[in-house]
């Protein structure tokens, strides 16, 4: 029941292939591919695909087989497919994973089987802290980092009174906590709404009554589409500038349209970032899929590049899991985000940028980089991690 997306291309392309007896690389790619939240899984896979293409279809020069599995956004299904990948398909490494709750569920079977995991999105705080593992690597970020960046920006800007909103789950609570870690002004309201709540009119009325200087929210996916549209319709964007994280991005912007113009967010990467790796990625992604890549795609692309470098570093011996994990940790690759290195907890230390959504001259919507907020930013949970 496997889905082989890419089989090995003939050895002709493998210029730098190791001379030893060649192994085959098997990558388990787990993400949410069905149901209402399938779009993000697609973004991850597409970004990863471009990364594999850039390695000539052979990550680390090895014939590469990608086994795609759908976690259906159900933690127990996630565990089931990961077990299948480990026990039956004997994959060398697992990548992907959109949602934190799925990541948390599969963390144990991965760690216990010593299977290297490269997260292309989810970076839950427990895994950055107490549950950190030598086999887990985040090619994305730690959940809190973007929130911290926005908090820092508002603090620097001298904003005194903010209003905070997020869905009522751990990532939402972590997010607002991260924001408050760097924002020291007054919090007029801190509202947690039901997960996947469609309508925010009641909460938006409270925002207007509170009269904050700025509003900061965390509403990923469909929630973000609803929220940003309704925020603009209520006329709030004129009076209270909207800051957000993971709410306005390339995956939601098409559906938000002009409602998102003028909102700010923070990210580790934007499509207009000026470095060679990013330019190449954006150009080839556009060529292949006809749209600007999202941050999700960029993370997954980095995951593929990271893996490619690591396998070369390990000399192609992917069956030795400990060696592969060690090689991932020390791998040097050109990240689309510029400087990239792993902290002791295997989460990246990297820059964060302020991002504004604007309407370009041709009427299209773009997310523009407005400068660095954090340089070489490490996450806040690394202290809880026992790895040194």
């Amino acid at each position, binding site marked *: 029941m496997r889905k082989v997306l890419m089989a090995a291309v003939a050895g002709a392309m493998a210029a730098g292939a190791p001379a030893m007896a060649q192994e085959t690389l098997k990558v388990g790619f787990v993400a949410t591919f*069905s149901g209402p939240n399938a779009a993000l899984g697609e973004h991850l896979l597409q970004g990863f695909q471009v990364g594999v293409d850039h390695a000539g279809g052979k990550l680390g020069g090895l014939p590469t087989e990608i086994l795609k599995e759908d976690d259906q956004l159900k*933690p127990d299904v996630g565990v089931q497919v990961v077990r299948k990948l480990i026990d039956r398909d004997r994959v060398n490494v697992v990548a992907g994973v959109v949602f934190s709750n799925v990541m*948390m569920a599969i963390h144990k079977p991965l760690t216990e089987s010593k299977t290297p995991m490269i997260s292309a999105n989810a970076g*839950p705080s427990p895994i950055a802290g107490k549950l950190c593992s030598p086999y887990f690597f985040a090619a994305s970020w730690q959940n809190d980092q973007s929130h911290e960046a926005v908090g820092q920006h508002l603090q620097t800007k001298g904003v005194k009174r903010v209003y905070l909103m997020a869905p009522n*789950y*751990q990532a939402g*609570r972590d997010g607002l906590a991260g924001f408050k870690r760097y924002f020291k002004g007054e919090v007029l309201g801190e509202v947690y709404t039901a997960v996947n709540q469609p309508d925010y009119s009641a909460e938006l009325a409270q925002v207007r009554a509170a009269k904050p200087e700025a509003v900061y929210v965390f509403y990923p996916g469909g929630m973000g589409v609803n929220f940003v549209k309704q925020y603009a319709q209520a006329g709030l964007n004129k009076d209270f500038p909207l800051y957000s994280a993971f709410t306005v991005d390339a995956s939601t912007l098409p559906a938000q349209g002009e409602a998102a113009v003028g909102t700010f967010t923070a990210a580790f990467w934007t499509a207009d970032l000026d470095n060679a790796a990013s330019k190449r990625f954006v150009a080839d992604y556009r060529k292949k899929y006809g749209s600007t890549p999202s941050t999700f795609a960029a993370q997954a692309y980095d995951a593929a590049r990271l893996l490619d470098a690591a396998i070369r570093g390990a000399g192609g011996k992917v069956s030795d899991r400990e060696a592969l994990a060690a090689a991932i940790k020390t791998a040097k690759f050109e990240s689309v985000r510029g400087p990239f290195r792993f902290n002791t907890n295997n989460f990246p230390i990297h820059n964060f940028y302020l991002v504004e959504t604007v309407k370009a001259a041709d009427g299209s919507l773009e997310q523009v980089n407005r400068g660095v907020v954090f340089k070489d930013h490490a996450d806040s949970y690394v202290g809880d991690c026992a790895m040194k």
Partner: protein
Amino acid sequence: MPRAALWAILLAMAVLLPFAADLAGQGYYVGFATRVAIFAIAALSLDLILGYGGLVSLGHAAFLGIGAYSVGIWTSHGVTAAPVHWATALAAGGLFALVTGLIALRTAGVAFIMITLAFAQMLFFLAVSLKAYGGDDGLTLWDAARLGPLDLSDDRTLYWVAIAWLVLFLLLGRHLVASRFGLVLQGARSNERRMRALGFDIRRHRLLAYVLSGMAASIAGCLLAHMTDFVSPAYMSWQRSGELVVMVLLGGIGTLHGAILGAAVLLILEEVLAGLTQHWMLILGAILVAMALVARRGLHGLLAALRGRR
């Protein structure tokens, strides 16, 4: 084929499965079979009230959650003895069923469907707000549950335990539906008024059935937690309750073994179709519609009809 022989063959297959999987180098299928057995227990328990009692619950996944959190909460406090988890789940599931059943059984039909959904949703949101136990993100269980000398994190061991529970519940269930209690329950499904006029306090019978069913489903929840080493509110989402209903209907209501069949077929269909195409839900949806239109009493009815025709 005589029934006894059929059962013997099925049991033999269940016993041989792990060895066959090993032989074929496909140990993964033991885990998959465990999952089937777990959902079969949940579906079987639902069939007791749905098929025999005529009570359609759209909140049965709540009991999966109760069982799973019984394991999760104990484990997070360092108690890994599975019998403690199970006893807690039985007590908590039974109590939840008793309290909600007292209210829900005042209603019938669609109102019953919805009120059971309401109680499950309340429990769902309660679990989401349980920050100490992971909230929406769930709780990873780092210490394996133990049953005496046995380690339940071992695939093989858990498989045997799940099969043992399934067989136990199937035998208990069959005994129960053939008992006086079962006869009254089925009579009440068919003609409530007549049963009252005969002097049966059918609400008490239904409540007891609901409690027993909830307890059995809670055990399924425990096993699910043992298997995934993970607990989350997602186990009790209303979609999950809906899937349990679909399993029972697909297999054929009011037969017990139909529920097992339904659970197995639905999980296998998901597995197979997802391997064929990304758009497997389209096919699954069409299959379910066709089943509802063509086969009157699920797969069980379909098989019986085929046998009859031959």
